Every structure is written in structure tokens, then in C-alpha cells.
């Protein structure tokens, strides 16, 4: 009933603050440290983020209590968001797969696959033209980064050294 975006955001923020604070207090103290020390501000940041997160969550809670139609507001806020998360996750997955394979397949084939996968995932036509655009685009990017800018892109197992 009270799981509004503000409440979820506040609770998540407080959690991040707590985790960060936990790691901040684990830092070793050295005799050479200044009075504030390396952990001084991080501990403060952690506490501040926790406090801000809790404040955001509490205010969100009070707001939803003030609104008579809290149930309908919640419904509007989250309706249809699942599919949006899933579609965004697909793009991230393509990025992660690229990260995992680029060292093996090399930059040009890897980026061609990334182009093709991203375009197809977002509704591009499944035909030879799409493959040609992906290959042509990868070749153009390879020229820009490797030939023009001289960046040492991953060569892959096929073209090592």
C-alpha cells in the first residue's frame, strides 16, 4: 500500500548508506593518520545517506497516508513497469555478453554482434540488410578507433599478437 517510488527510493538509499558505512568502519586505523583519517568522511557520508534515505522513505509514507487514494496511486506508479525493467535488462545483458566475448572474438566481430543484437532486440527487421548494416557499422567503428585514433582494441583468438 505504501510502496511508492519515493518509499522504495528512500529505503534503497538507506540500504546503500548502511552497506557503505559498514565498509567505512572496517578501514584500518594507522598511527600516521590525521585526526579525521581516511575513514572520517566516508563514515559521515554513510550516516548522512542513511539519514536521507530514511527521511525520504518516511516522508513518502506520510504522503501516501495523506492521500486518500493511496491504493490507486500505487497502482498507477508501478503499472507496466515490469516490462520496462525487463526490456532495459535485455540491453544490459547484451552489454555483459559483449564484455565476456570480446576478448575471444576480437573487437570488430564483437561490435558487429553487439550492433546486430541491439538492433534486432529493439525491433529491427530480421534480414540480410540488417547483417550488412551491422558488419558495415563495425567496419566503420574499427576504422575510427583502430586506424584513425590508434586505439589498441581486443584482437581476439583469431588474430592474436
Amino acid at each position, binding site marked *: 500500500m505504501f510502496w511508492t517510488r519515493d518509499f522504495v*527510493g528512500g529505503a*534503497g538509499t538507506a540500504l546503500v548508506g548502511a552497506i557503505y558505512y559498514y565498509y567505512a568502519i572496517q578501514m584500518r586505523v594507522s598511527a600516521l593518520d*590525521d585526526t579525521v583519517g581516511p575513514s572520517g568522511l566516508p563514515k559521515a557520508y554513510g550516516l548522512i*545517506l542513511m539519514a536521507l534515505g530514511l527521511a*525520504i522513505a518516511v516522508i513518502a509514507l506520510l504522503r501516501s497516508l495523506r492521500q486518500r487514494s493511496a491504493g490507486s496511486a500505487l497502482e498507477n506508479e508501478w503499472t507496466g513497469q515490469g516490462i520496462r525493467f525487463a*526490456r532495459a535488462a535485455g540491453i*544490459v545483458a547484451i*552489454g555483459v555478453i559483449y564484455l565476456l566475448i570480446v576478448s575471444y572474438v576480437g573487437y570488430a566481430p564483437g561490435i558487429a554482434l553487439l550492433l546486430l543484437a541491439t538492433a534486432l532486440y529493439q525491433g529491427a527487421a530480421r534480414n540480410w540488410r540488417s547483417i550488412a548494416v551491422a558488419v558495415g557499422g563495425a567496419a566503420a567503428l574499427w576504422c575510427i578507433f583502430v586506424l584513425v585514433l590508434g586505439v*589498441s582494441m581486443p584482437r581476439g583468438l583469431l588474430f592474436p599478437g
Partner: protein
Amino acid sequence: METILLSLQSLGDVTLILAAIVGVAWGIVGGAMPGISPSITMALLLPFTYTMSPAPAIVLLASTYVGAEYGGSIPAILIRTPGTNAAAATVIDGYEMNRQGKAGEALGISLYSGVLGSLFGLTMLILLSKPLAGVALSFTPPAYFALGILGLSVIATLSGENILKGFAAATLGLMIATIGTDPVTGGNRFTFGSSDLLTGIAPVMIMVGLFAMSELLVQAAGKSGGEKVTSRPRIAFPNFAMARRLAVPQAIGAGIGTFEGCMPGAGGTVASFMSYNEARRWSPNRSQFGKGAPEGIAAPETANNAVAETALVPLLSFGIPGSNSTAILLGGFLIHGIAPGPMLFQRSGDVVYGLYGGLLAAAIALLFVGMALLPVCIWMVNRPKPWLSAFIFALVMSGIYSIHNSLFDLSVLLIAGVVGFLMRILKFPFLPAVLGLVLGYLVESNFRRSLVLSGDDYSIFFTDKISFALLALAAVFIIGALGKRVFDFFLAPPNADKAGDVA
């Protein structure tokens, strides 16, 4: 006068002029694509600047900003969809002129006004930046700390509807800035044994992740499609009579744009809407506003282009980025080891004069490149969205890898993109996080140095006059914004129907 001469001298450098032309061209095309903001357009270029010399790199980014402000008006006029937020005011009369078959004239007025706004803004930038930076030359560590706090206090006006979320985002940025080597003792913090984290996380990864990557995720999550441009207009510049008619709204736009640009947090959108409103108020043709009045294009377009230049005043003088775009520009400075702020004019005067010269070249190039690129912009706007996203994704991944030749950086980029996406869904603003990230080192190192200098006496922050003045100003910013919000929270009637405006 000396500054102007040195700036003009820098125009002898061909690379600066090339950077200005390429930046303007990239900015126009990026700004013309709805959903791609000036900051995203700049962020996409950021990795490329690593291999460039500092002055052309900064000119490239700043010119992109200039070009994007004009580019945003192209879809605003042709398909009623502003390419940038600041072009939203141009939609009102620009689209009406298009419907009346005057798209070419509307685009001409937009381009002409944009060039005038840029030239006026550049003049104000040159006049204001150095004197302000001169004030800051006598800064001590407590004053630098206070300057960082003043920069962070801008968050109070940048946080949108929820100031607490703005402060939380800023704290998140400050936390990310603590990763790596401690600025005083040299010990490791939050590195978890990873050598990749020893030097910290470069702001460029977070900026590109938050702005460009999260935009990709949002676009992938949303509906595809969008209106296409069917007409093929040619730019027609105003004749003498029309130019005279536009002089007053352009002066209004230039004045408001300059003021808003110098104010951190205000930005081009506020300036263009304020200019539109004031131009209508002072116009003898006010009944034509909303029905295709040329003044309704001239005022906002002059204003948002003036903002593109004067927004650099707080950045160059104090190192405070007041908008997303200037935060990206700050990233460009940091990439080259240059810290904007009080010492910039002393240590990197050549870069500043190169920037001024480059911006002058950009303002002039805007006129020609804007005309030449109109068909390209229309072609780009009509490209299938899946391929546009795919190429931006590939460009981002390739660009970020090229910075350190590191796959680890790509992981950071993806994580920053996911964090940015969640921040958008949960309605947390980005800019405070970027401010926290870029000001974190300044704040922490000078806070601790001040205490070492004073023997742990916290009164040093109040006995130092500059520090006290800056802290007092920061307090005014924060208390003013907080006071307004507390007033709204308790006294304004509850708005029960806000759930629909979700990301």
C-alpha cells in the same frame, strides 16, 4: 582587451577551428535527435578527447554544446518535438510557422538568433570570467573547502521536486569519489583488493553511464517510433525589416540568457521560457504569439544559445558546473589534468584563450554548418530508432574502452548505466551525483588539510574571511530552497494526482 587579442591569436591554430566545426556539426546532429540531450551528445564525444591536446578537446566539447542548442530547434519546428529541453519554447511558434508553410523562415530565424545569442554570450563570458577568477586567487585550503560546499549547495536548486533526493544523489557522488587512494595518507579505500580501483573511478565513466547509457536503457524500455519529417525545407534568413523586428526579442533573450547562464542550476530551459514570456509581454504583436510569431522563436533561441556560453562563467571562474552540459565539460577538463577554478587562468591560460577563440569560431561556423547540415539532420531524425540506439551503444562501449584499454571500465559503465536507469525510475536527479563526484576530492582534501593547518581547530572555516563568505552564501542557497519546500509541504494543498507523471 588583452584577453580578446590572445583569444583571436589562438585562431591561428587550425586544430582549434577544426575542433569547433566538428563540435558544432556533432552538436547540431545530436541536438536534432529527440531524446539525445546536449549533455548526452557531449558525453558521447568525451572518450575521444583523451587522445587530443587540451585546448582542441575543450573546444570540441564546448562547440558541441553550442551546436546542440540550435540543433534542438530543428525537430521542434518540423515535427513539434523539441530535440532539447531548451527548445521546448521554440515549439510554440516554430511549429505554427511550419504549419503555415514557413518552416524555412522559422529555421532561418532560429539559426540567426542562435548565432547572435552565441556571440553575445561569448562576449559576456570573456568579460565576466577572468575578473571573477581573480577574486578567487587568494584562496586558502579552508576557502577551497568552502568553495566545494558552495558548489554542492547548488544542489538545492537542481534537485527538482525533492531536495532530499538531490542531497542523497550528491552524497552518492561524494561516496564514489572516496574510492581509490586517500588524498592525505595515501592509503587504499574501498578498493576490495582490485588494482583497477586504486586510482579511483574516473568521472567520465560515471558521466557517460549516467547520461548516455541510462538514456539507452530508458529508450529501450519505452515505446519505439515517433513522428517523421516529411517536408524538405530550405533555410531562409530574415530580411532587414524582419531583422529589425526581431532585435527587441533577441535583446531580451540575450539579457535573460546571460543572467540565467551565470546562475548555476538555472539553465537554458528556464531562460528560453522566461525570454518567450518577456518577449510576448513587451511585443506590440503579442496577439500573434502562439500563432506563428517570429519573435516567439527569436527570443528563446537567442536565450538558450547565450546560456551555452555564459554557463561557462561559474565553471571557469570557480570550477562549479551549474548544468549537466557544463558537468560534462568539466569532465573534459579533468581528463587533461586541468582543474577549472581560480587558478585556471594562471596555470592554463592558453587553454582558456583557445576556448574563447574556439567558441568564436564555433559561433561563426554555426551559421554555415547549420545550413549545410539541415538535410543530414532530417535524414538522422528519420532513421529507424533500433539502429540509432545500436550505434550509440556501440559508440559508448568503444569510446569508454579506448580510454584505458580496459574491460573493467566497461563494467563500471554498465553499472553506472543501471544505477542511472534506477535513479530515473525512482526520480533521483543526476547532476547532484556528478557534482558530488567531481567536487568530492576538493572538499575532502581541503577539509582535512585545513584541520591539519589549524591543529584540528574547526573555527578556521569561519575565521578565514573568504571561507566564511562562501559558507554563508551556501547556507543562504540551502536555507532558501529548504524554506520554500517546507512552506510548500505544510501549506500547499496536496496534489493527489501526481502518480501519472512517472519516468
